[in-house]
Each structure stands twice: as structure tokens, then as C-alpha cells.
């Protein structure tokens, strides 16, 4: 701490490193000597008397200890007068002084949320809940696995207050973005840091910018629309997860530093325990698509053959044969999972192991969309000597994912607009080529959906190995040194085919993309933990010093080819025009940090933290930056014991700063190899900014944890306020007169405020019947306060994916606002009537992107979990509520402009659009009220030029049953531990949204800022599924 705060230069890292080396050196020399000792044994059980395995038994003030075996026994050498501390996640810690007896049996009380329970905190430390001054929440791995989600990220929605998960679509392997406490960064990622067993884990979603066909200036770019790739956190098998702790704000995550400005998700994987044995579980799922789009079948196409499927024609004749092209498109999807694990430990728990394997075969309801994953993982721990403990974990994941295209190029839009007079299932000509209905240029005729899913493919394959080696050295009685070395490496291969016959591929004779992403991230972290040291009877202090080094590198080799020689053979060797693109990205980060915890009488805790980061991505003069945090916790019911009759309670307060760096290569432009005539070099879009500096978020939170009625009712409330200053905005535009188009500039300022409330209650708690309720309430709001150089608007260009609406924000607006070419309105306060073109009677639209108050931020969300236990039967379900927040139903706009929505059926009814004529009097007190009658059927511009504004649905609410599980524990004669279960996922949705599903992302999780959340364009909704399976333990 002391030396950390003053040094701002990498040279001092060297010094610090030497300090650590000296410390480590002493480890090897220090030969621990112990006093007169005896062997203490005993059994640890829970309230019901059932043995608890894996309970940590440690001599207080030292690191010497053991853990209990599979039948709860432990054995430990200790001296009389030593205090043994028994700790087990989710129970109250117990301390016993060693006396004359040799057998010490202990009973632990389960207390999932009380102040005395032991929880995981930053850097893999554990602490007693009462000492923590920040907001964090833990979800058990079992409850995540129970939802049967392939991507564990999807199981977190509603289970943690403040966490927001948005899946890009209902297609298997779709990327999911996760944000904590809203959107604070206008252009960069808002996703939290993922920590797996103590070290950062890559959660990248491939950005289409690395594809060779996406090279700058390309007309074949996907721009993170139209195709999607799995977010890499999905590689982890949920069955391997012991627990997930969400550190919500920078306050809680400050020790993780630079990458945890948006919070951190700390994943702990399972370890072996004595008596673990063999476990097998499986699950089989049947899924159906939940919602089906509705289209009118009264009016026929305007002129099949020469229009892009416009339905402003004559009504279908009664005798017309109409095909239900939607019917039969979706399939019943079958998914199966099998998980097998072996675990165990030596009776003294000095060596433990866990080996597991899992296989997932997931089908999507869209034909051809599949996700398969195979996991192999192993974790072993060994007490090598009395002062050295080693822990090795390895996770291997192999997954394959076939996705359909989405949005503009996806099958859903084709499915909707395909003429009902034509049988879409018949999608090939007798010659085996694309059967077309129009004489339009090939790119103008939407692909037949059956053709699309069969021919346009997006396949990826991923091989990943994550290894973590942890070493704990305990050379002194006052502390230990914990080092973790980790590698996270994967090879992600992608192949995207735009078929030579397809709308996208035809003019180029087919387009094939290949991109191989080889990522290897190296991390090393060393902590010197200093055990609690009592200064007086009531005051003690503990601390840690640490150092972390990371080196993240990704190399993407991409190839694209056009002009398929054999139209049906997919290989880059089969293409004629080829080009390639290599994208190397590397960042290095060195950090030093420290923490001191002051404990006054076990009821007042003050934690002071500091961290200094040195990053490679900021110019050297400013690449070192320090930021502090201070948090405190006050257990007022212990300070004023008279209150304890009614309640237990604690107050928290925290203030933290956290810095953040830029993306690699942000401040100095480089040249691009141009593909225009005769090649050569030229600058890319982005200009220089040699003055780039880190951005800082300053955050403060206040909270309280209260429990009543003997812990039957608990409340955890937090309010927070985070302001991000000097925010780096990527790709912000300026006048081209600068010589460039985009810049990476400091200067945005955003503020996030919110309230999180967690209420837990146990209305019934009897021996054979219990009922637990957990409600997570979240209200959050992000506001843009300023933009660099007072520029008027910043937008995320990839989100400009349909019409003229995009994720744009201006000072004073929500960070989740939408800007667009909305209707022009008069300027009379209180009236703001739509301006009407006097010549056509149709509304006039703005020619610049303007704000009309559209905000995708919900007013609040509630996740409500109920758990019932009746003897061997249990029922758990999670209801997810949302109130408010706007959703842009672009699909509906698309269909309306084509005369396909049922809303266009009254097309022959004359109407007058409410508004005032733009005749020069529109801004006066006496404007000309529009009186021009139009008949939409005759004046189809009414539909075709309709503003997207009409389709931004305000204040979308929903109630959805995210998951429900009924399980039954079989009597022990079948197996040691056997149960059967049925789990339903996304079984119902009640919403005022008229589209398919308001949980949407028009882009994918790779897009920064607010991204395409709440933009619904050609997206497949999440299907309904029913899972059933067994869990067996032997």
C-alpha cells in the first residue's frame, strides 16, 4: 500500500517485483517449527446431524489446517490453547479452543445469507459477510446448472439484482451480453470482467471486423449484424461451476482494477472432496418455438415478378390456393446433455481430485441450427508439504455451432414476406439452383427461408484449454503467499457461406469467409496475505499486497473468397477472387495493489484498497495510474446489542475510483493496404490522438443488510452513483476536414445511478416443508452528461441496422436512448403536432438524427425466485418482471411497409393523419389543421414511407417464467444420491409488446456501448423448452 500509492512508473514495478522475490525467497528458507502438539480429531455435522465434508478447519492466526472428509471427520495437530476455526461456505463460522479433550465435534448452522456466513470476495479471498462494505451477490452453481441453459450467463438474469442479460436471439449458440448496473460506456464494452478460479477468463464474442470480407470500405461487410457468434464464456460447463459471485460496482471489484470498471463475475469451479464418488446426470429437452409471426392473408402481392414482395395488390381470390409457409419451417428441437464426474480426496484431505466430462447436443428450432459442446475438466489439490499447497485446474472445451443468418439476411424475414400463393418449401429448381419468383436483380429478391437455412451457413468450431496453477506457500505464522499462473487459450474457427445463388452472394458468385482466431491469454497473480493482527483487544488489522501481470493476445487469420467454381463445393480452394486479412491484437498490463482491513470489535470494518495499473494501450507518459477505494461496514446491531432482539443489521458505505484504458492501437493511426486500383497504402478511418489518457469512474454506494424474525426475512438494499469522466469514446465522428473520419477521444461524461433491493424470506420452514422466496429489484439509469468537443451526438454505427433509427445518445439523454429521422413537429409548447406535407397529406420527417425521448432503459426489473421443499420433492421457479423501457419493432415496420401486417388491412379506409400542415403557419397559435384525406391503399407511400418512430413501442412490460424445476430425491436404495427432475424454460411470456419477444439484440454481444439491445429486426425469439433428466451419485 504505502509504496504503491506513491510510485507511478514501471521502474517501480521492478522494485516491487524484487520485494516480492525477496519475500518468496524467504519462503524457501523459512523452515517452519512448531511447538508441543497433539492430534485433535472430530466430526463436523450440520443442524440435522448430517456429516459435512470439505469443512475448513484452521488454527486461528495461522494457515495450518485441514478439511473434513466425506463423512465429516477431520484430524489435525494442534496445541492446547490454539483456537480452531471451522469455516464452510454458506454456514456460520465456529471457533473452539483446544483444551484437554482430543475429540472436538462441531455442528455448523447453515445460513445462506446471514452476516456471519463466509463468502468469496475479490481475488478469490473469502471473508465473513459482516466485514464487506460493498454490494455483492452469490448464486450457487447448482441453481445455475438446474436451469439447463447451455450458456450459464443466461441463467443469471433475475437471480442477481442489477445484472442484465440479453441474448442476441433464440438460436443455439447465440451470444449473450451481460451488464451490471447499466450502460456507462458510450462506445466501449460494458460487460464485466469474468474471473475463473482467480484469473481473468476471456468472454469475447467474435467481432465481424476481423473478417476479410469486412475490411474497411467493403460492400460485403456484416458489421456485427446478420451473423452471430457465441460469447466465449459459454465454453464453461455449468455443471463444473461451484458458485458465481457477482461483484457489482467498481467498489467491490476495485482490486481487479482496470477491467472491472463494469463489475466482475467471479466463478469458482468445483473441487474434489472426501467421499465424492461418481456422479452422473443427464437431461433431455424438447423445444418448440414460442411465438409465431402474424401476417395478413387477405390482400395479395402487388405484382409478383417485378416488386420486392409488396402486398398492396387485389384481395386473394376465394379459390386461390394459399400455402402456410411458416408451418413446417420450425422443428421440434431435441437436446441432450450428459455429465459424468469422479471426485474424491484422501481422508486427511491433503490430496483431492475431481474429473468431469460433459456432453451437450443442442438442436435449435430453426432447421440446421445446432450447438454441441464437449467438456473435459480436471481439478486437483495437494498439500505438498506443511507449508506448500498446490492446486491445478484444467478445463478443456470443444464446441461446434451452426447458426442461421439473422436480421436483413436471415430466414425470418424471408419466411414472413414469401408470397402465400407460392409453396416456399419447394425452393430449388429442377436443375438444383435457387428457384426465384421475380425478375429483380438477385440481391433485391429476399431469399426463400428454406433456401436460406439450407444454403447460407455460419459454422464455428472452438477448441479451448484453460489451465490454472495455484500455489499457496505458508512460510510464516502471520501470512501466506498465493500465486496463480494461468493460461487461457483457444482456437476459434469460423466459416461463413453466402451461397452463390443467394441474394447476398449472387452478384459475386458466392462469398466464403474463413476466420481463425488464435487467442492466448497469460496471467500471473501473486498475493501476500497478512493475517489478522490484533493491536488491542478490540482493534485488529489484516491486509494483502499483490501483483498481477497479464498478456492478452489474439491473432485472427481471415480469408475470403468469391466466385465459387463449383457452386455446391465449400472450400476457399473453390473460389476465384481471394483476399486475406490478419488482425493481431495484444495488450499487456502490469498491476500492483494492496488492501488493509481494520476490524474494530468485529462490528466496524474499514477496508482501504489501492491499485496501480500500467497498461500498454495508453501513451507512455500517462500509462500509469493509481486509484484508491475505501469501504466500510458497520454492524450496528452488534454495536447496540439492545437492537438484536428485533433484528440484525449492517450498514455499508463505499467509495471507489477505477481507471480504464483504451483498446490496443487506439492513439496512433496506421496505414491500410488499399484494394483500389494498384494497391498502395493509405490511412484508415481513425485519426491520431496522441493525448489519449485513461478514463476514470468514480463510484459510491450506500447499503444496508437487515434481517428479522430470526433471519426468516432479510433485506439488502443498495443505492449507488457512478460517474465516468474523460471517458474514451471510440469511433466518434468529426468533420472530415480533420483528414479523418473517426477519432478515439477522451471527453465523454456519463452518470449511472440506481437502487438495488434484495428481499429474501422463508415464510415456511418446517422439517418436511419449507418455502423460500428471493426477490431482486433493480432500478438503474445511465445518463450522458457530455460528449468530447461538445459534439452533438455519439452513436454506435453497427446499431444503425434498420431504417433510420440507431443507438445514439446526446448530452442529457439516457445512455440507452434511440435517435432517428423522426417526424417533424411544430415548436409550440404543449402541442408539438406532426407536420404534414401540404402536397401529399403525409407526415414530414427530420433530415437529421433527433431525439424524441425514446429510451430502452426499463424503469425497473424484478427477479422473483420461489423454492418449495416438501419431503423429497422440491419446486423452484424464477419469474422475471420488467416495467418500462422501449423496444423498436423493426420487423413490424418492415412488414408494414410491405403491406403484410394485419394493421394494414384497413387500407381502403380514408384517413386524415392528425397534424398541422407545414404551410408557414405551423409554429403559430393558429396553424392549419391537416384536412387532407388519404386512402392508404391508393397512396401506399403512407406505408412505405412510414417513420420507424411508429414502431418504437413505449414502456414495454413483461412477466416471464424464466425457468421452473420440479425435482424428486429418490430413496437411497437406488443410489447414494439420486433425483429426477423436470425443468421448463421460458414457458410463458406475458407482455404488452406486440412483436415476437422483447428480449432482443439487433446486433450481437461484440458491439460496444448500448449496442443493439431493444432493436428487434428479423430475430428469432427464445423457444419454449421442457427438460427432464436424472442425477445419480454413487
Amino acid at each position: 500500500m504505502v509504496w504503491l500509492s506513491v510510485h507511478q512508473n514501471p521502474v517501480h514495478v521492478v522494485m516491487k517485483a524484487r520485494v516480492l522475490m525477496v519475500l518468496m525467497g524467504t519462503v524457501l528458507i523459512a523452515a517452519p517449527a512448531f511447538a508441543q502438539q497433539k492430534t485433535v480429531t472430530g466430526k463436523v455435522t450440520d443442524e440435522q446431524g448430517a456429516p459435512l465434508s470439505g469443512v475448513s478447519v484452521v488454527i486461528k492466526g495461522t494457515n495450518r489446517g485441514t478439511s473434513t472428509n466425506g463423512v465429516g471427520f477431520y484430524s489435525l495437530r494442534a496445541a492446547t490453547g490454539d483456537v480452531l476455526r471451522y469455516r464452510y461456505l454458506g454456514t456460520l463460522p465456529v471457533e473452539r479452543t483446544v483444551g484437554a479433550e482430543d475429540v472436538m465435534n462441531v455442528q455448523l448452522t447453515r445460513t445462506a445469507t446471514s452476516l456471519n456466513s463466509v463468502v468469496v470476495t475479490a481475488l478469490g479471498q473469502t471473508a465473513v459477510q459482516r466485514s464487506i462494505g460493498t454490494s455483492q451477490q452469490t448464486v450457487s452453481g447448482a441453481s445455475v446448472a438446474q436451469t439447463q441453459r447451455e450458456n450459464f450467463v443466461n441463467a443469471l438474469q433475475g437471480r442477481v439484482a442489477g445484472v442484465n442479460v440479453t441474448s442476441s436471439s433464440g438460436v443455439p449458440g447465440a451470444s449473450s451480453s451481460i451488464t451490471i448496473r447499466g450502460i456507462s460506456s458510450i462506445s466501449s464494452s460494458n460487460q464485466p470482467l469474468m474471473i475463473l478460479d482467480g484469473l481473468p477468463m476471456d468472454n469475447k464474442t467474435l467481432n465481424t471486423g476481423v473478417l476479410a470480407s469486412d475490411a474497411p470500405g467493403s460492400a460485403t461487410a456484416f458489421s456485427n449484424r446478420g451473423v452471430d457468434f457465441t460469447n466465449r464464456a459459454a465454453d464453461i460447463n455449468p455443471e463444473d461451476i461451484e458458485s458465481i459471485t457477482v461483484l457489482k460496482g467498481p467498489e467491490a471489484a476495485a482490486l481487479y482494477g482496470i477491467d472491472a470498471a463494469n463489475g466482475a463475475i467471479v466463478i469458482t469451479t468445483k473441487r474434489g472432496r472426501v467421499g465424492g464418488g461418481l456422479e452422473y446426470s443427464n437431461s433431455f429437452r424438447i423445444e418448440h418455438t414460442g411465438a409465431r409471426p402474424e401476417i395478413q392473408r387477405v390482400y395479395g402481392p402487388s405484382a409478383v415478378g417485378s416488386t420486392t414482395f409488396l402486398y398492396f395488390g387485389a384481395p386473394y381470390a376465394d379459390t386461390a390456393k394459399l400455402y402456410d409457409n411458416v408451418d413446417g419451417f420450425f422443428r421440434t428441437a431435441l437436446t441432450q446433455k450428459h455429465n459424468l464426474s469422479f471426485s474424491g480426496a484422501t481422508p486427511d484431505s491433503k490430496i483431492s481430485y475431481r474429473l468431469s466430462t460433459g456432453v451437450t447436443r443442442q438442436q435449435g428450432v430453426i432447421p440446421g441450427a445446432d450447438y454441441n459442446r464437449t467438456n473435459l475438466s480436471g481439478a486437483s489439490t495437494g498439500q505438498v508439504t506443511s507449508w506448500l499447497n498446490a492446486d491445478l485446474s484444467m478445463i478443456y472445451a470443444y464446441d461446434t455451432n451452426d447458426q442461421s443468418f439473422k436480421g436483413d439476411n436471415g430466414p425470418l424475414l424471408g419466411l414472413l414476406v414469401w408470397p402465400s400463393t407460392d409453396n416456399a418449401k419447394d425452393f430449388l429448381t429442377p436443375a438444383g439452383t435457387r428457384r426465384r419468383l421475380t425478375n429483380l436483380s438477385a440481391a433485391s429478391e429476399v431469399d426463400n427461408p428454406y433456401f436460406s437455412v439450407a444454403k447460407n451457413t455460419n459454422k464455428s468450431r472452438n477448441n479451448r484449454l484453460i489451465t490454472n496453477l495455484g500455489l499457496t506457500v505458508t512460510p510464516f505464522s502471520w501470512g501466506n503467499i498465493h500465486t496463480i499462473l494461468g493460461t487461457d487459450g483457444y482456437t476459434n474457427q469460423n466459416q461463413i457461406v453466402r451461397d452463390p445463388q443467394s441474394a447476398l452472394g449472387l452478384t459475386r458468385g458466392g462469398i466464403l469467409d474463413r476466420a481463425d482466431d488464435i487467442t492466448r491469454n497469460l496471467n500471473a497473480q501473486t498475493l501476500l496475505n497478512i493475517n489478522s493482527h490484533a493491536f488491542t483487544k478490540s482493534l485488529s488489522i489484516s491486509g494483502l499486497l499483490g501483483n498481477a501481470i497479464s498478456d492478452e493476445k489474439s491473432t485472427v487469420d481471415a480469408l475470403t473468397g468469391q466466385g465459387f467454381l463449383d457452386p455446391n463445393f465449400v472450400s476457399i480452394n473453390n473460389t476465384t477472387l481471394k483476399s486475406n486479412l490478419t488482425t493481431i491484437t495484444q495488450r499487456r498490463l502490469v498491476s500492483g495493489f494492496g488492501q488493509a482491513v481494520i476490524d474494530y470489535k468485529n462490528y466496524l470494518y474499514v477496508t482501504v484498497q489501492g491499485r496501480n495499473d500500467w497498461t500498454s494501450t495508453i501513451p507512455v507518459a500517462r500509462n500509469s495510474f493509481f486509484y484508491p477505494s475505501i469501504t466500510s461496514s458497520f454492524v450496528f446491531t452488534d454495536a447496540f446489542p439492545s437492537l438484536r432482539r428485533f433484528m440484525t443489521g449492517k450498514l455499508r458505505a463505499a467509495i471507489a475510483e477505477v481507471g480504464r484504458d483504451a483498446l490496443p492501437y487506439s492513439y496512433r493511426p496506421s496505414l491500410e493496404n488499399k484494394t483500389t486500383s494498384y494497391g498502395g497504402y493509405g490511412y484508415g478511418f481513425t485519426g491520431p490522438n496522441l493525448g489519449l489518457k485513461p478514463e476514470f469512474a468514480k463510484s459510491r454506494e450506500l447499503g444496508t443488510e437487515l434481517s428479522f424474525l430470526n433471519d426468516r426475512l432479510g433485506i439488502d438494499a443498495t443505492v449507488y452513483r457512478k460517474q465516468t469522466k474523460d471517458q474514451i469514446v471510440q469511433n466518434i465522428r468529426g468533420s472530415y476536414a480533420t483528414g479523418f473520419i473517426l477519432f478515439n477521444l477522451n471527453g465523454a461524461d456519463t452518470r449511472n445511478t440506481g437502487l438495488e433491493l434484495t428481499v429474501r424470506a422463508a415464510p415456511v420452514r418446517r422439517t418436511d416443508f419449507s418455502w423460500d422466496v428471493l426477490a431482486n429489484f433493480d432500478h438503474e439509469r445511465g445518463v450522458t452528461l457530455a460528449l468530447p468537443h461538445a459534439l452533438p451526438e455519439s452513436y454506435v454505427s453497427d446499431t444503425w441496422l434498420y431504417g433510420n433509427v440507431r443507438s445514439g445518445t446526446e448530452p442529457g439523454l439516457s445512455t440507452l436512448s434511440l435517435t432517428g429521422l423522426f417526424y417533424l413537429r411544430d415548436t409550440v409548447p404543449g402541442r408539438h403536432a406532426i407536420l404534414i406535407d401540404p402536397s401529399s397529406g403525409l407526415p414530414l420527417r427530420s433530415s437529421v438524427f433527433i431525439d424524441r425521448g425514446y429510451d430502452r432503459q426499463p424503469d425497473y426489473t424484478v427477479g422473483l425466485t420461489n423454492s418449495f421443499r416438501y419431503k423429497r420433492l422440491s419446486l423452484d421457479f424464477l419469474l422475471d418482471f420488467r416495467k418500462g423501457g422501449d423496444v423498436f419493432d423493426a420487423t413490424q415496420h418492415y412488414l408494414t411497409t410491405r403491406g403484410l401486417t394485419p394493421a394494414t388491412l384497413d387500407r381502403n379506409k380514408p384517413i386524415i393523419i392528425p397534424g398541422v400542415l407545414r404551410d408557414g403557419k405551423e409554429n403559430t397559435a393558429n396553424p392549419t389543421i391537416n384536412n387532407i384525406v388519404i386512402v392508404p391503399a391508393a397512396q401506399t407511400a403512407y406505408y412505405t414511407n412510414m417513420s420507424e418512430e411508429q414502431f418504437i413501442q413505449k414502456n414495454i412490460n413483461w412477466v416471464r417464467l424464466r425457468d421452473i424445476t420440479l425435482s424428486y430425491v429418490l430413496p437411497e436404495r437406488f443410489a447414494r444420491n439420486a433425483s429426477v427432475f423436470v425443468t421448463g424454460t421460458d414457458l410463458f411470456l406475458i407482455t404488452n409488446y406486440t412483436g415476437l419477444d422483447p428480449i432482443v439484440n439487433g446486433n450481437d454481444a461484440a458491439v460496444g456501448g448500448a449496442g443493439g439491445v431493444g432493436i428487434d429486426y428479423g430475430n428469432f425469439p427464445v423457444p419454449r423448452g421442457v427438460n427432464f433428466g436424472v442425477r445419480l451419485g454413487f
Partner: protein
Amino acid sequence: MFAGCAVLSVACSTSDYLDVNTNPNAPQSVSPNLYLAPMIHWMVTAPQYDGRFVGHYTQEWVSTSSNFSPAQTWGRMGYDPASDNGAEQWRDVYWSLGQNLVDMMTKAKAEQRWDLLGVGLVLKAWGWQALTDLHGEIIVKEAIDQSKFSFDYDTQQYAYFEIDSLLNAAIVQLQRSDGAVDPGYLAVGDKMYNGDRTKWLKLAYGMLALNHNHYSNKSTYNPADVISLVDKSFTSNADDALLPYPGTSPDNADFNFWGPRRDNITRYRQTQFVVNLMNGTDFGVVDPRMSRMLAPSPDGQYRGLDPNVLGFGALSASQQPDNFYGYPGTTGAGLPSRYIFSDKSKIPLMTYSQLQFIKAEAAYRLGDKATALNAYTNGIASHIDFVNARNSDDNQAVTQISSAEKTAFLASPQIIPAAGALTLTQIMSQKYIAQFGWGHNELWMDMRRYHYTDIDPASGKQVFPGFTPPTNLYADNGGQVVQRIRPRYNSEYVWNRAGLDAIGGLALNYHTKPMWITQP
């Protein structure tokens, strides 16, 4: 743990551990000639991008694509709101040239590569010429400065003087053969003239002639000076500034913009105005170039569309003109096409023929009718050769104009009159034909200099015979014809509104405000 120590010590005792932020994907600086090829590409190609829209103003063509842009906006002398259409040259002058041109010229100067420096000056002059002719007031003095985020506009007069001084500076540099002047080195980036600085020198004179000839409405107009500059410029078609398109890149960036592979004008059709210039309506003789430049209808007749009528109007399928590739409907990559509309047809920046018409106009205004007729005749003859050359760039199937056809056409008194009978209508109409399809910037400048419908006092006919602005002008025009294109939307209307406001650029009818150069 030892591994940990090793990582720590290796990592931390090396102060350059963090020095990994030099982009490994691309260089930050290259040899000056490597900047050149993309800039030349855009100098020639960017005017074609904007030509899709300018060509609607000049009624070279009209799009049949839909009820909206470009037929209903540009076709009505309007513009596309909130769109960057019509501002490709804005992008390329400030960005594709922009800092690249600054870097190239700085390095060329330091390395005494006077030929490359001269080429750089020509490129810079071209940029301001193209932009000011399209947009009027532009940003010159404050341009290419990454520390600024609001930019003041300069007057068109300033831009014109700046172009003049840049071209004169280029002429000085291009005359030098000392220092590191090296045709082989220059040719690495220059596939237009293959490193021949003497041709660049001629181009500089030609651009100066074009610049000076734009003063025709002003009292300072000096036609003798224009003639002398043309005479120092191109002497034959061999001097034409032509960019070839190799057509090898999968992103189509090095294909001719008009070619079927780029698919940009598949739904465009020639106007009746253009057809009338060549089918004998205006000049009594069928021009042999018509069947090599324009497209027939399936019934074999040559027809054009009326910009006031949407789509094909009442024309039957067999009467609807084919597209410029020569096909009725759509087309696919690789199909043979015609004239400059083929995938590998060369596109000119400036031609000998064009300069001869400039000379003819200047001489006519000077009163030297004999010089005017001679230049006018050279202009037509050399353009016939140009048409034949473009129809063989890409091994097209179009029959060449035979020398007999050429001779017969040039012998026609309606086309080549006696010197005394030559009219401005003839000069400007033939210049229009010679620039049709590629010379949009100059073509539109010609029309604006003659206010679209000026009458040639000598002939009593319109300078551009039969040209009529659209009857239903775009709503924002307030009944006025178009005079300029609004500056690029995503550069200026969003991010530099203060600068625009100072020149009145925020007005809804700004695009109808006459420019300085076309006023007396």
C-alpha cells in the same frame, strides 16, 4: 513458484514489456510513392460515384429504380436528406487524399523527389477544384488539422486562387529533373502515366486551362490565356489521363465503378435529352457514337426517358431502353458491356478531346472562329477515337466506328460547319457528348455557366438544345434550379454545423444558391 518468479522477473525487469502497442497489422509510415496509387484511384473514381447524382442534374441519365432516390430527389434537382450521397469527392479529398497527401508531399520534398512532389500538388489542386465546383464554399485554409473540431469555410474565390497557385507550383516542380527525380520510382504508384512527369506537366496545364475557363461569366475572363494553357497541355489522345481498372480484388474496389460487376447503374437509363443530341434531332445527323455509347431498346430503336416521368412511363417492354450494359433487365458479373460501362474500361480524369472543346469555347469567345473550328473538329475526331478505344479496353463485343463512318460524320456540314457558322450550341453540345458518362463535374459546371437554358445569341438556340429542368422541382428548392451540392452530411451537417451556419449552409434551399464562379 519458480515459474512465477521467472515470469515476474522477466516481465518486470524489462521496462519495454509494455511496449507492444505498435500496430503489428499495418505500418504507420511508408515510402512516399506507396501513398500514390489509392489517391490517383480516387481522383478518377470519386467523380464517378457522385456522377450517379450529378448525372441526374445534367440529365445524362435517370434511375428507374423506385419512387424515391435518386429519381425523385436528384432527378428533381434535389438531394437525399441525411445521406452522404453526392459527397464521395468530399470524403476522398479530405480523407483518401487528406493526411496521406500531406505525408507523401512532406516526404517527397525531404527526399528531393520533385516529380512526386509535383504530382502531389496536382492532386491537391484537383481536390479543391472538384470540391469547390460541386459545393461552392469549402474548407481550405483550416483543412487537415486533427486538433480542430470546428472548421471555417473559405470562399470559392479563395479556392480558385489556391488552385491556380498550386498548379503553378506543380508546373515548377514537374519541370525539374534534378534531385531524386525517377520515373521508375514514381511509376510504382502512378499507373496513369507510368511515372512520366512530362505528362503530369501537361495535365497541370490542362487543369489550369479548365480552371481559368470557368471565369467565362466574369469580366476578368481571359480566353487567350486559356488557349495558351491548352496548347501547353495534351497534344493527342496519347496524353489522356486514363486510369485502368485491374479488376482483381474481391471487394470490387479496383473494378470500374460503372461496370456490371459493381452493379451501380443497372437500373439507370439514358435520357431523351442525350439521345436527341446524337440521333439527329438536334443536329440533323445520326452520330456514329450513339450506337457505341448509348443503349438501344429491344426493338432496335434508340430512346431515352423523360426525367419527369417515373420509371419507364408508358413505354412497352420492347420500347424500354436497355441499360448501359446493353441488356433489358438485370445483369450479372462478367457479362460483356459497352463504352466506359465495362468492368475494365479505363476512366479518364481529363481528355485531349475535352481540352480541345475548352480551347474551342475560349477561341469562340475571343472571336477567333478559325481556331475555334479547328479545336472543335479535333475535339469530335479525337472523341470518336476515344470511343473506339474504350470499346476495346475490356475486349467488348461492340463494333468499332470505322474510319469511313468517322470521315462521313466529320464531313457533314451540320456537324462541322464553316468557321463563321460555328455556334456555341455546337461546341457545348459536342463537349457534352465527349464528357457524357464520366466528366460529370465539368459537364455540370458547363451547364451552370450557361445557366442550364441560356440561348446562344448566334444560333438563337439553347446552348444545350432542348434541355429543360424538371417540371416538378424538389420541395426544398423553392422553385429554383440546383446550383451546388450540399456539403457531406455526415461530415458537416452533423459535426460542423457552426461552420455551415456561417455560410448559410443550413438553409433548406442552400443547394439552389448560385456560386461565385458562375456569376458576373
